[in-house]
């Protein structure tokens, strides 16, 4: 699926160290959306992750799958800037990550909406320094994108689980982040809602061109959503598989599943 984002047409994976030293400069041409160089993370003498080398090109939908406690959430918090790496470096568009920032939006397993703000207020949280009119436009745009037009004035506790997570995604996307980090975002939803949300996040990824790093412990979710799947084992978390998922492969897998399902339906009939 070709992305309309011009970033997708640049050469990927070669960070320019000179420009990277400038914190406020334009992103270095050809820098990957996210790059991890020999990154390790130790929690209280316990190695949690790494060493890991990873390049996430702009526009990719990378899913990271692995069992609980394998270090996938640690990987996400390092990229988000919530925690510093013990060794190695994390780069976002060629610049070292020194903390969280609006270029990397985060969606947590729980929606974590601010309960004192309406859905609109939550979405507008990251737009504080935007001019008022463009802020309102952006909020309206996101409400439409996530199908929450009628929920704009509702408070988080008045929403269903799926709507809450949609609002959380809208809030994370509002400041136009380059990268969307999702930490098992659909893990707490029922199966039906989860499937719908999976479709919606694919559509959002296609329409916005945002780079997605998606953590899950669900293998099917990882292979159906991602354009590339990373399998992590640990602790300490290490990459045991790094494989691209081509669109037609996914279609083949889906077709195979459908055929198998209908075959089973035939035999039981």
């Amino acid at each position: 699926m070709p992305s309309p984002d011009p970033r997708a047409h640049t050469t990927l994976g070669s960070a320019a160290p000179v420009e990277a030293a400038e914190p406020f400069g334009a992103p270095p041409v050809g820098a990957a959306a996210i790059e991890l160089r020999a990154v390790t993370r130790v929690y209280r003498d316990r190695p949690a992750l790494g060493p890991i080398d990873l390049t996430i090109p702009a526009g990719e939908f990378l899913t990271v799958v692995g069992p609980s406690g394998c270090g996938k959430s640690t990987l996400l918090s390092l990229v988000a800037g919530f925690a510093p790496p013990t060794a190695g470096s994390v780069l976002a568009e060629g610049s070292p990550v020194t903390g969280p920032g609006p270029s990397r939006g985060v969606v947590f397993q729980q929606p974590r909406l601010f309960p004192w703000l309406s859905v609109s207020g939550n979405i507008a949280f990251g737009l504080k320094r935007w001019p008022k009119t463009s802020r309102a436009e952006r909020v309206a745009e996101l409400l439409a994108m996530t199908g929450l037009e009628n929920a704009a004035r509702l408070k988080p506790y008045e929403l269903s689980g799926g709507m809450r997570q949609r609002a959380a995604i809208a809030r994370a996307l509002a400041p136009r982040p380059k990268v969307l980090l999702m930490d098992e975002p659909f893990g707490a939803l029922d199966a039906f809602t989860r499937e719908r949300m999976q479709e919606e996040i694919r559509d959002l990824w296609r329409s916005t061109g945002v780079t997605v790093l998606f953590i899950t412990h669900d293998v099917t979710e990882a292979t159906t959503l991602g354009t590339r799947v990373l399998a992590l084992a640990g602790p300490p978390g290490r990459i045991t598989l790094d494989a691209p998922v081509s669109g037609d492969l996914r279609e083949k897998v889906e077709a195979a599943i459908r055929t198998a399902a209908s075959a089973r339906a035939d035999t039981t009939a």
Partner: protein
Amino acid sequence: MNLALRLGAVVFLLAVWQAVAWLKIWPPVFVPEPVAVFDQLLRTSTEGYSGYTLAGHLLASLRRIVLGCLYGVGGGIVLGLLIGVVPVLRTLLGPLVTFVRTLPPLAYLSLLVIWFGIGEEPKVWLLLLAALPPVAVATADAVRGVHDDYLNAARSLGARPWEIPYRVVLPSALPEIVTGVRVAVGVAYTTVVAAETVNGVPGIGGMVRDAQRYNQTDVVVLGIIVIGLSGLLIDYLLQTLDRRLVPWRGRHI
């Protein structure tokens, strides 16, 4: 249904009270008749007592409570935020707040009278000191209990470090703070009579104290009932405020 139950309980209590008074086991100086108390209600409301009407006494007390609570709640929130956010201040001020909280207000009333005289200042200070610790402790605990995800979400949405306390931490802590305020107002209420033992007229506490001096038990009982009822009313108002301010209380999000 609830209202009927409550009214019934009040009527029952009044009946028991009247019966005990009629039996004359104790002289009226110990147990005044409800009728006598009601009579005092009318007389203090019209003629007044110690130079002020009942409403005048009540308003003077309420004014002290409101002022003391405003200062106490404001100071408590600021202090609680500081204690909750800055580890050094937690070490320094935490024990001090607990120290003040465990002191009975009467213990430092004398000191306040020496410092501030016998006017309004020592009374408001006493209520402030009574109202501050519950709010400070509730705020500090709530601030420390804010889930990391909220702070991380705010920071990754571009909130600056100095914005976090008022944009995220304080509103997150609001349910506990409001509970702390309710406790604080309750403590201020129980303290106001003590605050008015020194030159407390006008004031419900001063009125009760004067009545005690002249063995006017009916006025004493009237004062107690007025304090209790106005306290109930204020707590009801605070509960309404609570529902308005933190409608998400108790709901998992």
